[in-house]
């Protein structure tokens, strides 16, 4: 199995090898791995890779998956332009 050819984060093109290397270096939370590899920072915001990485952390570290947290999510959900924000403020309610 060539871990280099297995994509875990499609948005940011991060491979299984990259993820396993980081976990082995001691980065065992999704938040840490996100900051170092950009997983979960693309358009899908971790919907594709999140569970796969959680399982990978669980397998390598022995931490049960129930104890692993997904990445933090903050507003806004998806992109929004300044123009759209201003336009909303100008509507008479």
């Amino acid at each position, binding site marked *: 199995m060539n871990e280099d*050819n297995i994509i875990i984060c*499609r948005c940011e093109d991060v491979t299984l090898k990259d993820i396993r290397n980081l976990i082995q270096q001691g980065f065992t939370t999704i938040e840490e791995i996100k900051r170092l590899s950009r997983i979960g920072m693309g358009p899908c*915001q971790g919907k594709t890779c999140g*569970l796969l990485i959680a399982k990978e952390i669980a397998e390598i570290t022995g931490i049960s998956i*129930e104890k692993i947290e997904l990445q933090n999510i903050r507003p806004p*959900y998806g992109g929004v332009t300044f123009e759209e924000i201003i336009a*909303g403020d100008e509507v008479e309610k």
Partner: protein
Amino acid sequence: MHNIEKVELIIVGGGPAGLSAALAAANYGVNVILVEEREFLGGQLVKQTHRFFGSEKEYAGTRGLKISNLLVKEIKENEHIKVLTSSRVLGIYKDKIVTILTNNKMMKYFPKALILATGASEKFLAFENNDLPGVFGAGAVQTLMNLYGVSPAKKILMVGSGNIGLIVSYQLLQAGVEVACVIEAAPKIGGYSVHASKLRRMGVPILTSHTIKKAVGKDKVEGAIICQLDSSWREIIDTDQFIKCDAICLSVGLTPLTDLLRQTNIKTVYISELGGYIPIRDENMETNIKNLFVAGDVSGIEEATSAIIEGQIAGLNVAKRINKNVKYQLEIEKQIMEAKEELELLRAGPVGEKVRKGLKKIGLNNSKNYDERMSNEEYDISFLMRTGIPSNDNLKMKLPQSEEIFNKGPIAISECFQKFPCDPCVKGCPFDAISEEGNINNLPYVDFEKCTGCAICVSKCPGLAMFVVQKNYTDSTSLVTLPYEFLPKPMKDQTVLVLNREGTEICEGIVKRVIDGKIQDKTTVVTVEVPKEYFLETRNIKVK
């Protein structure tokens, strides 16, 4: 507050859960804003061309897209519901302010209550070259095919045999796409056996204990390497097999789409039985944040029928808080009770066990109403669940016990061996000849004395598991009536190839009758004359 509109209820997501939640609340005068990201309502229902299982009350026997049309029509006629399509909820803030991007404007709202019915996203699989063009999720394949009429491939490998994998495979066949095979890592088929049997009699192999190792191809998928797994899910060496295909469809499960929820202080917990990280909620669908409800797949993966009922429960609970009119309080309470009972019944059988286990982990559904006997299969269906083909022992149980019954004329044979909640055959029989002994989770049995062989049930059964046989049509031939959902449709007097339960050609037959009326709703009912020796084997036809 500046430019913040106070509203009663915001519902996020226009799928089955969101639609039913909106109707349930609006029927008691609650003013609802229903927000849907796409340009139309209906969610995944709009892609579902197959008939739904479940109880008639929740539209069983009706095709998914028709259920969507019915609900959306009601929504549009309801003056209390304002629909925002092509609109996205951007944020849910600690002070309960909700921002929505609609019509190129970011609007701010302050709702009294919020129902999140955001559904699910597809799980992805790690294998070599999984980024090669031609690797699809099942949702994308369904969207291309059923929404836009675009064929995704010529020959496809389906990974995963849950209901979605099985249903999408069948729809691919209907669209004229070849399905090389369906592979499943578990030792048994994940979805309903009737869906698997439909594929098998079209000649599609289902390989359990198999997984994909590698997508093969230079610039796009040209094939895949699959291998066998042992009972501990480890690869068995030297079992590599090359499957030629131009697309690989992944149908390896769904996970709750909790992104919006996780913007808040909601508590989530990993429950594998419910698809991943789910929000903690109570039996009224309310989360640990007051007046923030969830419904449908976002609260744990199930199916559309339970999503509809969960939506009702959430919507009714909001109505109870907002509509203070005493006159309605009792009525609402009664409806909530009924919906909960309905949901419990849906989950009572063997296929509901996984969901029951998952819910128990978050302290729900420890109900006394679950009858142990109800949750056991009636027969040993291990062979059926491994192959998609009922065993001879299974078949025998549903056949008339005496030969004389065949002399009486045509009779219906039910090939439904796995217990799950479904009743269109029972409700549809005009002669009351099919019974589940009062519980929707039981297997249906035909009372051969009452059955006239009218074949209404053949097109009613969502699993296409009803057949009518007339053994002694002539001295040497029998008639078999079966459901057929492919083009071109057979014509009367035409000679067709006759297939058995494995999709193997066994003989030729002559089409004696084709019923394709409004009641059949595109499930054509075909009667074919076959040599007598094949009357119990004839389960499909191929139009030449």
